[in-house]
């Protein structure tokens, strides 16, 4: 072998989906080029991303930092009945100027050169725009009107606020589709919401794994021993999995039972018949919605999970941070007219959820385990055949149909 040989070391550019559609190749979770395309086609594309809640910004000038994909977004009540959202990126030289998670402002000023924007994101002031003593300043043809902040289209429904950069995104109700809209409006029914607080966690796993996890009706009764033990979620309970017509959104519906040992629990290794709570207030449940379901876990592709589990209600926002991690922001809520007892109930049940949740901690951990394996096994594939190869609504849990649904849509939008 002499030194004149030149080796071509290709980057990872050609990607072929496995022959069977019910397989997901591990590279969708690890490849940075795939991730870049996701940011472009999914988060910047014709999709509504969750931004927050009206209740977070009740007064004119109230704002919150939120995000779409990796972009930092300011959501602000710009007028009594107007909510505006724009990218947190100065029109001048790009600084991410707003640094506080929340506040009240009459305008936004970038610290670098104090360009000032209105609550609507319009450029309102450029210091020394005409120069000083007639020297310097911006060119005559500089047009402030075309140099405002980059705005999002806004959808407000049931107290939640969504945003999109794309003109092609359909109206929010059409985006959800009639079936998912109905589920959505069960909890977000027009009653005023009240924020109970936030939890934030960075999960070292690809963002899609969290979407999968919530769409995965097969896992809750198995992974979450707390659920199965106390009858909150078990495979033999009345349940359903539904999707919109193209499979991107989904809901997992269930009706809680009681703590009981039966045929099903006996095939659950994590079931522990001995376990009792010493202080039962944590599971004190009050049935507050008209339908019999006690769990409704909605995934609104690509950015949010709308949780209703017994009396615990929250939104869980997904903010991707590279192919191998995402920030996961929980906003726990109640209704503005909740009794103090109901508020306490929701706060107590919150022990089950979030980064220290008796149930939810499991999810963050297990998808971290998945990501580790994906990163070390580039040829690997995930097997999503529970419930068959088809995609469709079901009245049972032992299925991965909603995951298949999401990837069918994903392949379409990603050109994979």
């Amino acid at each position, binding site marked *: 072998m002499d030194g004149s040989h030149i080796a071509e070391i290709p980057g990872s550019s050609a990607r072929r989906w496995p022959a069977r559609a019910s397989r997901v190749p591990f590279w969708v979770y690890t490849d940075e080029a795939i991730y870049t395309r996701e940011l472009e086609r999914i988060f910047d594309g014709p999709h509504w991303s969750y931004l927050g809640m009206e209740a977070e910004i009740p007064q004119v000038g109230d704002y919150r930092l939120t995000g779409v994909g990796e972009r930092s977004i300011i959501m602000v009540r710009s007028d009594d009945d107007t909510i505006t959202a724009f990218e947190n990126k100065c029109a001048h030289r790009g600084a991410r100027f707003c640094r506080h*998670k*929340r506040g009240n402002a009459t305008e936004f000023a970038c610290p670098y050169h104090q360009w000032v924007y209105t609550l609507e994101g319009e450029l309102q002031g450029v210091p020394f725009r005409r120069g000083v003593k007639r020297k310097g300043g911006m060119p005559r043809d500089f047009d402030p009107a075309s140099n405002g902040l980059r705005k999002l289209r806004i959808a407000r429904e049931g107290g939640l606020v969504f945003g999109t950069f794309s003109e092609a995104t359909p109206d929010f109700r059409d985006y959800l589709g009639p079936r998912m809209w109905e589920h959505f409006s069960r909890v977000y029914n027009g009653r005023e919401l009240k*924020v*109970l*607080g*936030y*939890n*934030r*966690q*960075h*999960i*070292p796993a690809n963002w899609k794994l969290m979407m999968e996890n919530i769409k995965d009706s097969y896992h809750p009764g198995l*992974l*979450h*021993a*707390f659920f199965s*033990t106390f009858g909150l979620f078990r495979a033999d309970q009345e349940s359903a999995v539904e999707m919109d017509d193209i499979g991107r959104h989904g809901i997992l519906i269930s009706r809680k039972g009681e703590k009981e040992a039966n045929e099903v629990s006996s095939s659950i290794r*994590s079931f*522990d018949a001995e*376990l009792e*709570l*010493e*202080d039962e*207030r*944590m599971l004190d449940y009050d049935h507050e919605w008209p339908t019999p379901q006690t769990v409704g876990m909605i995934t609104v592709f690509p950015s949010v999970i709308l949780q209703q589990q017994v009396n615990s209600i929250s939104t869980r926002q997904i903010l991707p941070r590279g192919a191998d991690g995402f*920030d996961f922001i929980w906003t*726990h809520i109640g209704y503005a007219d909740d009794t*103090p007892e109901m*508020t*306490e109930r929701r*706060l*107590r049940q*919150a*022990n089950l959820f*979030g*980064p*220290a949740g*008796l149930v939810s*901690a*499991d999810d*963050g*951990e*297990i998808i*971290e*385990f998945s990501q580790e394996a994906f990163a070390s096994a580039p040829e690997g594939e995930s097997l999503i055949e529970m419930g068959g190869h088809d995609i469709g609504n079901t009245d049972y849990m032992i299925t991965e149909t909603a995951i298949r649904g999401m990837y069918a849509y994903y392949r379409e939008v990603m050109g994979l």
Partner: protein
Amino acid sequence: MSGALSTNVDKPQLRMASRDVRADVQAFYDEYIALLDDGEFDAWPDLFTKECFYRITTRENAEAGYDLSLICAESAGMLRDRVRALDKTMMFGPRSYRRFLSGLRVFYDNGGIQTRGNLLVIETLVDKPSQVAFCGRFEDKLICEGGNHLLEKRLIVLDTEMIPNSLIYPL
């Protein structure tokens, strides 16, 4: 925002405890932390009063007056439930937490004791470097019964609002 699960506090002017009381309360915390670091979680609820209140939250929630917690318990029974669930039902990767308490201040408070201090938690996951997991402060109330201290209230407010995946063990 001032229900039973609220921990919004007004800061009264408290009187610093004597050197001896400070030393004894320090010794109590040293035992408390050794017990948790050693993973003796079953014994942990016994360091609290029966009707205790325990809460871990973040600065974000504490400063905005939100009552949401990472972990919240309204009795020693709930602490025992947490420990039992941790042991029997939760699924998580093996790890060790090591707790470093610093700057303990001890005050008299109507026959009881209030404390303030800082807490640093270093986490070590299997075959990973040790790293800072959580950092925050605590504001506790203790009573002294027969020479033994018991926690009546423990409130931990984390600076660490972005939890590194999970908060598994109690602090």
